[in-house]
């Protein structure tokens, strides 16, 4: 015992030396990286990392090619844009934790705002591009089975008979949050009260047999596994889903729905450190250019601005009345707290029934009881 202990301690300097070497290797790597890109004021080649969310994979593949061509023509610099896609919230956390994004194009405002709060993005990020840095929007629509057997035309039709609904968990999915807010806002916009909205939304989730954690999982549940009569999702996702179903599914546009507003921002600290600001700003600006807008429209996202280009020649954007997050909840912070936070409206829907208080109170009550 004694002997092995001594041998062990004598090896500690060696181990710490090893550790130091590792650290030195890492820092050496990163410093050589920055010096190479810092060198010239106008670099010959720039690499951008666009950290985005799941449904924009195809869109940005096209945008990146068009933008690289455009930027090289304008400035003589070759840009390669790399993309990263995952659930929006986890992408936001990855950037906060050090993923080297030059730009973020995420699903919801809180995801970008969280990065701004960490200091990586300047607080005025919304002011820096037109329309509060929202270059395109979408709407929440219904996907139904061929022939629309349940005759679903608008929101009130969802709470009828034995209709079952597929939508992801709003606590883990941006798509799920928007569907929840769309249902809530649709009742308010039709003249209903907050209480009506809560009753309706509760009814919707009682009809939801599966709470998938992400949008694409919910799509698989509906289209591949054949569960549910209607799937609530973004317009551009609905088009993908319907195209892949080979005639088994169709889209229904409700009378009103929520405006889905995915924001974009340059990650200031990363762009300055990597000397990629010029290209990064041009990249997001490209989303507002005629060429960029046409590409956006071709992916069934609605470009911002007057007379948006159609999704394809000869097609038009289906009419739909929209309301935004401000109408439903004032702002995102409010929405997060009121609806999706711990003990919020969504949690209250799933509180076990025997509670004496009405559903909403029960949620708050549970939180208080837990706190004492």
């Amino acid at each position, binding site marked *: 015992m004694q002997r092995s202990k001594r041998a*062990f301690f004598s090896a500690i300097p060696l181990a710490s030396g090893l550790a130091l070497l590792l650290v030195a290797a890492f820092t050496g790597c990163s410093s050589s990286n920055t010096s190479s890109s810092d060198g010239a004021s106008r670099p010959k080649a720039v690499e951008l990392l666009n950290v985005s969310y799941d449904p924009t994979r195809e869109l940005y593949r096209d945008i990146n090619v068009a933008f690289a061509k455009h930027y090289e023509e304008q400035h003589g610099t070759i840009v390669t844009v790399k993309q990263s896609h995952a659930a929006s919230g986890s992408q936001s956390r990855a950037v906060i934790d050090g993923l080297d994004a030059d730009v973020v194009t995420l699903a919801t405002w809180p995801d970008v705002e969280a990065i701004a709060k960490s200091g990586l993005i300047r607080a005025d990020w919304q002011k820096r591009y037109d329309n509060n840095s929202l270059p395109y929007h979408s709407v929440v629509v219904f996907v139904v089975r061929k022939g629309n057997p349940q005759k679903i035309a608008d929101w009130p039709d969802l709470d009828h008979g034995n209709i079952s609904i597929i939508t992801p968990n709003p606590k883990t999915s941006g798509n799920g949050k928007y569907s929840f807010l769309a249902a809530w806002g649709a009742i308010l916009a039709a003249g209903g009260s907050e209480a009506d909205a809560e009753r309706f939304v509760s009814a919707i989730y009682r009809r939801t047999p599966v709470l998938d954690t992400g949008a694409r999982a919910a799509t698989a549940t509906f289209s591949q596994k054949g569960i549910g009569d209607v799937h609530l999702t973004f317009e551009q996702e609905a088009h993908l889903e319907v195209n892949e179903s080979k005639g088994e599914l169709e889209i229904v546009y409700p009378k009103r729905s929520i405006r889905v507003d995915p924001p974009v921002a340059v990650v200031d600290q990363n762009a300055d450190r990597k000397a990629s600001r010029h290209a990064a700003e041009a990249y997001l600006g490209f989303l507002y250019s005629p060429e960029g807008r046409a590409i956006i429209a071709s992916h069934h996202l609605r470009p911002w601005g007057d007379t948006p280009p159609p999704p394809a020649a000869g097609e038009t954007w289906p009419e739909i009345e929209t309301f935004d997050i401000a109408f439903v909840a004032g702002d995102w912070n409010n929405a997060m707290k009121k609806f999706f936070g711990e003990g919020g409206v969504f949690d209250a829907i799933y509180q076990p029934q025997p509670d004496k208080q009405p559903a909403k109170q029960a949620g708050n009550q549970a939180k208080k009881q837990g706190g004492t």
Partner: protein
Amino acid sequence: MNMPTPARQTARRRSVLPGFGMSAAITTLMITAMVIVPLAVLGLRAASLGPTEFLAAAWTPRARAAYAVSLGASLTAAIASSVCGLLVAWVLVRINFPGRRLLDSLVDVPLALPTAVAGLVYSTLYVERGWLGRFLVPMGVQAAYSWLGIVLVLVFVSLPFTIRVVQPVLESLDRDTEEASRMLGASRRQTFLRVILPAIFPAVITGFALALARALGEYGAVVFISGNMPFKTEIAPVLIVSRLEEFAYAEATAIAVVLLAMSITLLVIVNGLQQRVARNAQ
């Protein structure tokens, strides 16, 4: 560096294991970097909450229901996996049949397959329209989006551990002792219970512990088949992800700490059990 001191020379000369000092240092470094530091950060993050906040985050009725689902399904799966694993290992070791080698290599597939794929495939099979579901659902067996489904995927992801741990022990088992037992008049049942089982039981328990640990932490496979209904089929890791979505890191870690404490407790119990069995066997 220092010149070798006399003490070290004696240590080196007398140590039975060659290179013990070096390997011990590397082991310590690795374990510190890979296990202890991350766990310490986990603990620190959770500790940023006061005791009441910690309880409010990690001990709500919903969280308790989620722990129950996680623990119950993992324990059931680990038991099922141990039994199935023992059977499969026995067949692979003792019975020679065509395709045995192929079957043997298939055992490792669940380790290589992304678990999310396993979850998707299982749920697609067992839904009402699925290949298996169309027979099972009319019989009243709801495997997709149910507790049963969670157990099924957990058995799938943990089976390689239970098989691979028992297999080498079965291989090294001396067949002579079994023959001797039979010759001395023991029944097949007695031979199994008194001769074979004591020899392999420690390995079975190890496999059980590995399977349990694997099952408790599984997220990817489970979320696709459980349906994630609060209070019914929601596992604790889903709650962690929900809290992360709110950027409530400390609350998320609180749930993780409780889950970790539970699994460590279980593993300690299992380890104790194994030591007792090993002592009794001697």
